[in-house]
């Protein structure tokens, strides 16, 4: 062998040793690179993607919502149990006829740029959200609002078309963030300006976004001086970054990744039941599925626990329609709480389809980890009841296109749940709901129940109404609710005070400390 080759191999070996030894000098838990945080107690959160927008009214991406929630304030907020609590509105009162909601605003609140927050900003924000030209995603949540008045600097009055008990909860999402009346979408896309506990310090596109504590925040000040959301596109690589001490907190959805993270022993993983639910969405306006008996046959032919066990390692709970803790449906109150093939056959014969039916089902690949496995298990189970799920596995863009156009018999989906059942299902299962076309099912009874739910403020009475909504949904089986999974919050040693929420929200970064 020539000497040149030997020396080349030698150089490579020396290089690798040199680089490896250099690396050990990087201390775990060091402050975010390039941010110049003074103390070593800043928090680094590992995320797979950076926000796709910094404009709160248009943000639906999980990562964007998580960042923006820490920058912007809302009139109301959710506490850790998803109860509605005061936010920028200190208190609110509904008039006796329910047609007027008066909000008293918190005083002394300022935006990140130092300007004062008052009723003018609330009016301007709500008016703009309601304007179709803004294309705000939460516009429909304000459908009961006729007008917004600001009689004085600290009071806002919403004139409503009718009582709307869901409104306070609807005001708590970041899509309803209060923006300064002087700001524009263009400006906020580059320079966020909110009333939240943090403000933006630094952003490196597709690499990181660093937030600094907002010392003028009206509530309890965040414990950490800065939070860096560091983009590590691969979830397994985030686990590695946590093991090497470079990242201290991350939220995972894939049970397999959570297992890997926990396996090393240095990372603590907390499971929180999600509001999101896995569901087989049937389109009750398509073909054989128009017949409720066919839909009920599908419902009876599925062992939900089996889907959960085979597709998601058993990580989750079998669920009914409503997953919100305060309004939770009882999964045992449904036509077939356990799999019953005899009943399924009876339903099919009632529908005159004893020979079986074929259901064209769309499945998205890559949108979430368990979709294809769920679809395959459902197919296998339903085949035993002569129901043939004709699976069409699509790239997520193609799936969304077909879903939006309601171009499917059935869809295997992970759907976002909300803390208030009206917000979750009013838009799908009322005849005027803006997603009713996709859900393909509504009835006068449901319209009436949803209207009653909106008109009732008493919590117990509302729970009873939404129990009836649940029952109606299960009896008519427009969708087959399967299970809800967990959100896995992974933290390294020394991270304290973080409260994971069922909504997956990172709003409690403000109470988190790193030692």
């Amino acid at each position, binding site marked *: 062998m020539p000497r040149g080759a030997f020396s080349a191999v030698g150089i490579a070996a020396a290089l690798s040793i040199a680089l490896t030894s250099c690396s050990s000098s990087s201390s775990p838990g060091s402050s975010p690179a390039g941010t110049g945080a003074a103390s070593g107690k800043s928090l680094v959160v590992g995320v797979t993607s950076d926000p796709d927008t910094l404009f709160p009214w248009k943000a639906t991406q999980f990562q964007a919502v998580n960042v923006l929630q820490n920058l912007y304030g809302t009139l109301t907020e959710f506490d850790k149990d998803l109860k509605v609590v005061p936010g920028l509105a200190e208190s609110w009162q509904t008039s006796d006829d329910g047609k007027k909601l008066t909000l008293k605003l918190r005083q002394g609140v300022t935006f990140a740029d130092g300007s004062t927050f008052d009723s003018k900003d609330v009016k301007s924000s709500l008016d703009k959200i309601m304007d179709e030209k803004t294309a705000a995603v939460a516009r429909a949540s304000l459908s009961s609002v006729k007008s917004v008045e600001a009689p004085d600097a600290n009071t806002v009055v919403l004139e409503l078309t009718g009582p709307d008990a869901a409104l306070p909860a609807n005001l708590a999402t970041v899509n309803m963030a209060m923006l300064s009346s002087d700001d524009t979408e263009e400006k906020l896309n580059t320079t966020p300006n909110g009333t939240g506990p943090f403000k933006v310090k630094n952003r490196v596109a597709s690499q990181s976004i660093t937030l600094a504590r907002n010392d003028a925040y009206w509530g309890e000040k965040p414990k950490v001086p800065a939070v860096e959301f560091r983009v590590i596109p691969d979830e397994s690589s985030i686990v590695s970054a946590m093991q090497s001490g470079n990242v201290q907190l991350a939220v995972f959805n894939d049970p397999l990744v959570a297992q890997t993270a926990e396996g090393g022993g240095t990372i603590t993983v907390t499971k929180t039941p999600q509001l999101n639910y896995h569901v087989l969405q049937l389109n009750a306006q398509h073909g054989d599925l128009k017949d409720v008996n066919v839909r009920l046959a599908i419902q009876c032919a599925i062992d939900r626990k089996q889907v959960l066990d085979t597709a998601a390692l058993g990580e989750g709970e079998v669920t009914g329609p409503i997953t919100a803790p305060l309004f939770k449906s009882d999964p045992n109150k449904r036509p077939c709480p356990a799999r019953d093939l005899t009943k399924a056959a009876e339903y099919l014969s009632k529908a005159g389809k004893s020979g079986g039916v074929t259901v064209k089902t769309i499945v998205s690949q890559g949108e979430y980890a368990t979709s294809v496995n769920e679809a395959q298990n459902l197919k296998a189970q339903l085949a035993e009841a002569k129901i043939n799920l004709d699976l069409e596995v699509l790239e997520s*863009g193609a799936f969304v296109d077909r879903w939006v156009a309601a171009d499917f018999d059935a869809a295997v989906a992970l759907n976002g749940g909300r803390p208030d059942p009206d917000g979750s299902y009013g838009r799908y299962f009322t005849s005027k709901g803006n997603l009713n076309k996709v859900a393909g099912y509504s009835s006068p009874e449901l319209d009436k129940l949803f209207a009653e739910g909106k008109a009732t403020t008493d919590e117990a009475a509302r729970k009873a109404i939404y129990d009836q909504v649940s029952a109606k949904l299960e009896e008519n089986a427009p969708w087959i609710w399967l299970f809800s999974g967990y959100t896995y919050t992974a933290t390294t040693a020394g991270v304290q005070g973080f409260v994971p929420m069922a909504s997956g929200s990172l709003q409690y970064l403000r109470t988190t400390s790193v030692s």
Partner: protein
Amino acid sequence: MRLRNRVVSTVATLFGVAVLVFVMLRAIPGNQITAGLGTEAAALTPAQRQALEQYYGLDQPLVTQFFSWLGNMFTGNFGYSARQQQSVLDLTLHSLPVTFELAVLSIVLALLIGVPLGMLAASRTNSSRDALGQVVSLAGLSVPAFLLATTLLSILAASFGFNPNGQGFATLFDDPLLNLQQMFLPALVLGFGIAAPILRTTRTAVLEVRSNDFVRTARAKGVPERRLQVKHVLGNALVPIVTMTGLQFGYLLGGAVVVEQIFSVPGIGRQVLLGIQQKEYAVVQSTVLVIALAFVLVNLLTDVLYRIIDPRVRAS
């Protein structure tokens, strides 16, 4: 004349790439609205949808979209990424050097592994040395980069707490030491994969050159063995090795995306991937065109290298 042909073919290639990317992107289902909002897009009212289409420029006819983009490219306006709130030119100026550095390091490592092992394998065919070469090249070709990358990263991080890529990315100018550490593993993974074809090419080329008369003559003249192997044999076997290296280098400029994802290297591959995920047409079109241009330039450079290393090409 040759130069003119070359320029014409380059321009034609780039135009072809531009058309192809433009058409392919629009053939993929979905657009920037549905990519951003997901299934929430179903809740948009017609007026909201119209406002968004106008915002993203989707309301323009396709031909207008194509030529306004291409025309803008000539004026240095590569488009704007709404997602990242930066011009595509700025994004590219940041990501291209990162990928270029990664490609150079990968090629250096690939050459350091491939050429010596190729020569070693050729030094005695069908021996254990040759078998070693075969095993390394088979491994390089058959072990997928994502598997090697994930395994390396997981084992080093879990067992040794070694994971420079877990820290925020540092450019060569920000922090050269950290940068080299962050580049080392991805370059090794890519380099290992590329070492295989280089090894095989080296082995074949060396064997072929060795069978030539001039080698026997040189040996008969008493040229020392080491000098014979390096100067006479390797020197004359360089042309195919350079060709293979050039090809691989060009491929690396756009094809390192998986490794960039796993090691969080903000290179140009990731820029394209994010663009595709978000359906940011301008980002994908402009970046792919830049990659295509870089590929053409690398090919040109390879041709120039032939002239330097092979007097016969120079003479012709």
